[in-house]
């Protein structure tokens, strides 16, 4: 079986949807966080496959940026979650509604 662009994109879409579902359905902040990373990597996969099939390096460059930014984001985000947990003794989104009127 020849593996073409469509297959890569299909995998990428499945990964993205899994990540999205995780963000929407899970209650634990850390899991939501991991799901977010999953969505980012789904995008990375799509970019890399476009790059490969079009014989251009633009997509790969973009992927490097995404990985870098995601790393920084994880550092900040995890720090926030830890701080939040220390304050509230909870990492569940239902508890984080103090901005509501």
């Amino acid at each position, binding site marked *: 079986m020849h593996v073409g662009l469509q297959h890569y994109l299909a995998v990428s879409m499945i990964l993205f949807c899994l990540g*999205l579902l995780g*963000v*929407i*359905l899970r209650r634990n902040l850390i899991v939501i966080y991991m799901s977010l990373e999953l969505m980012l990597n789904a995008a990375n996969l799509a970019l890399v496959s476009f790059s490969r099939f079009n014989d251009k390096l633009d997509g790969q460059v973009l992927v490097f940026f995404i990985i870098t930014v995601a790393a920084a984001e994880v550092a900040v985000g995890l720090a926030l979650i830890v701080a939040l947990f220390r304050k509230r003794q909870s990492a569940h*989104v*239902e508890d*984080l*509604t103090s*901005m*509501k*009127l």
Partner: protein
Amino acid sequence: MKNELFPWLILFLPLLSATVIALFTLRSKTVSSLISIGAVAAGFVLTCLFVNSNGIHYSGESSVNWLTIGGLNVDFGLKLDALSMMMLFVVTGVGGLIHIYSYSYMDEDAGKARFFAFLSLFTFSMLGIVLSNNFLMTFIFWELVGVSSYLLIGFWFEKPSAGDAAKKAFITNRLGDFGFLAGILMVWGLLGSLNFSALQNAMVANPAALGASATIAGLLVFCGAAGKSAQFPLHVWLPDAMEGPTPVSALIHAATMVAAGVYMLCRTLFLYNADALHVIAYIGGFTALLAALMAVQQNDIKRIIAYSTLSQLGYMVMAVGLSGPTPAMFHLTTHAFFKALLFLSAGSVIIGMHHEQDIWHMGGLKKKMPVTFWTFTIGALALSGIPPFAGFYSKDSILAQCLEQKNYLLFGVAVFVAGLTAFYTFRLFFVVFFGKEKSDHAKHAHESPLVMTAPLVILAVFAATGGFIGITNNYGSQFAADHETLSLAQQFLEPLKTPVPMFIGIGVAVAGIVLAFLLYKNADTDPLPAKLGVLATWMRDKFYFDEFYEKTFIRAHDFLAAVADWIDRWILEGAIIGAIRGGTDLSGRALRLAQTGNLQTYTILFVLGVVLLLYFVLGK
């Protein structure tokens, strides 16, 4: 024109005085009153100098362009001719004396400085009307005069009656001014100019220039005069205006402001066609009769003189209506002298009586207030038309004018009113100065200080001699090119040229005085109500005009106001504004439900939004 700057100075000095008093010297009574008196006295001196260098028969204009909008060209200009210069003398001369009198009259009043600021403002406005050379400027000063009259009538604003009287005067005047403005616009629309000289030239070149609407235009302009000069049916405000201090009654509601209507009619005499003049004459005659009847049964010293003012204004308007501007202006000038004199004498009596105004509480003041008694006597004789006092000459010229126009009905009215005038004047005279003292105040009455009696004496001199010192010469040259200048002796004997009105006039005046003497020489109460019955009640209650207006116009106005209030409250504010406000509120409440505070709900909505966007962007 020599001394071109003088008229401008005369006009603006009182304004300067009002400004300085209002801004800087309100704390000091003496400084304020001296500034105000100085401004009007300087005006009088400048008027004398100006007339001396240019002559009274000079005629010219001094103007600057004020604004140009399309075809409308308005000057701020001064018209200088015999008419306006004579009025300058009246306003600054009589006005100056009243200013001096007020210095003492208002001495104990805490608001003396404010009083003089208002007085200066009034003088400025009145001079503006007198000097104005176009309709728009006249209208502006016309309104300014209304404002200062409002301020001065309501000077003792802590008294509710004074506040009401001020409002009544202002609102009644507004009614007349509405017609005046409509008339001005009509004249401008038809003749294309507001300048008096230009209008006069246009009317002389083509007497039918106003076309079919000539009568309406004339009567609309007359509306303004009817308001200011308190002619029927807008006469109701003047008697109430007596709530103001007495010098105000003398200056504004006798000598100058109420004369502005007559002055304006004479200034714009070229506008009126025969029909309009007819209406004006009859309104004037009717006002004269009505007011004289009312005056017979009043008991307040100032109100009697106020009704007499109304009646005399009716005479002047009637004279204008009978195409006699010279008799009208002549009577206006002499009336300014003797009516200011009567008011100021009445003020002197009121001060002497410790602010008692009911004539049935006075009596026997002849010995206690000799100067006031003699000046009042001269004023009363002049008002009644006894020769050789000023009122005799001017009233005689009006009577002669009636006969010359062959209007026997108005002649009869004028003669009857002349008799009534003598009667009610001397009713007042005998009750106040003769007989027994009718109250404790009358027993302890005292003469007023020299600052008050000196103006009385000066005015008395003019009230006695005003008939033959050349006033008719000056006005006559203004209104008739072929007017011959008369010498002093000729003027003195002028009424003899028309013996019929002269003898009838003297006859009814003497009859009125004799009747008053018989009825009131020693009367303690008024014997007239018993003799006249219900008529006396009607006279006392002013023929129920106030009540009639209350029941009809004011009630109709209240009804309209209530309807407007209902529409505003329920339709504008309730329905329209309420619907907009309620709708916003409701949608706000609905949208707030979307704000759950739940992160994941937001995410779902966000994703749905993105999907929707993608569908619209890519799906087609």
